[in-house]
């Protein structure tokens, strides 16, 4: 099943986030709980973890891009 990854809202007041790094390449598989990408907020760099097993299909934004919360940043294929 294909799924979208969206820029998460890590805090209620957060409007946009910086995607600092992808931690998986396109085509690379991952397990639930593994960090997929990094988002920098004012205080720290958050390593956002996968919610289920899958494969990263597409990276739709570049590292360093500022992306509004809720906007699509990538696509994954997860096990049914």
């Amino acid at each position, binding site marked *: 099943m294909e799924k979208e990854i969206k820029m*998460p809202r890590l805090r*209620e007041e957060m409007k946009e986030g910086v995607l600092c790094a992808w931690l998986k390449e396109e085509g690379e598989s991952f397990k639930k709980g593994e960090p997929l990408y990094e988002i920098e907020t*004012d205080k720290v*760099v958050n390593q*956002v*973890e996968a919610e289920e097993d899958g494969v990263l299909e597409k990276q739709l934004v570049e590292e360093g891009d500022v992306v509004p919360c809720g906007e699509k940043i990538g696509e994954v294929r997860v096990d049914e």
Partner: protein
Amino acid sequence: MSKPLKKPDWLKVPYDPKAVNEVASLMKDLKLNTVCNEANCPNLGECFMKHTATFMILGSHCTRNCRFCNVTHAAPETVDPDEPENLARAARQLGLRHVVITQVTRDDLPDGGAQQFAECLKALHELCPGTTVEVLTSDLKGDHDALDVVLKAGPDVFNHNVEMPKELYSKVRPQARYERSLDVLRYVKETYPNVLTKTGFMLGLGEMDEEIDVLMDDLIETGCDILTISQYLQPSPEHYPLQRYVTPEEFEQYKERALEKGFRFVMSTPLVRSSYRAAEAMEGAKESRAE
């Protein structure tokens, strides 16, 4: 405005969106605030994943406006009479064995919010027997009667943060007073010697090494048991400018120095916060006292 400093590798933290949402919605349902959320705590992801949180009572608006802190400074809210029971219910639902309760500073209330602390302690003792409780209070305007109200309700740990050396108060915490905070810690230790006292300060605000030395001496003189030392993280470009990131090695050196000076238990790493792994700190101090 100067460009923010590049974040070092040791400031990377895990974030599990699902676990964070679970704890956040429980708090919302019970109309509770957490300092984790209000202060934009860097450990929120780790703690919420472990289903632990630090409750922040008496609203989400602080009557003081410290330049290092992310908590909103605004007109104070009405005290919620259901808060103590809701807090105890949340603690039970999360299965917390050690609960930390902090507050927004309420200089508008005659007792600074002491009675609400006492009510929360009562509710927790009733609903979650056997659970230990740590209170992290404001200076309660240095009022010993207000401190008595909190302490007579039986917390296991009394925590009050001194935050920084004396020299920085006028620039960063103008509405607080260094001597008053020391007096709060001293009074509690002298009057309730069986309660563990705890305090914390930040590094990276521009403090000098000698100032930290004096600060540690002043804290030890109050009889303080537990010390937390953490990295100041600037909540936004409008807050007090971060001067530098202190390395984990330097944190380790400060820890050794604090232990040499006589603190029973010291937590000192960049991401330590005053209620971070609070149960561990309490147990560590108890063991040290038993020796």
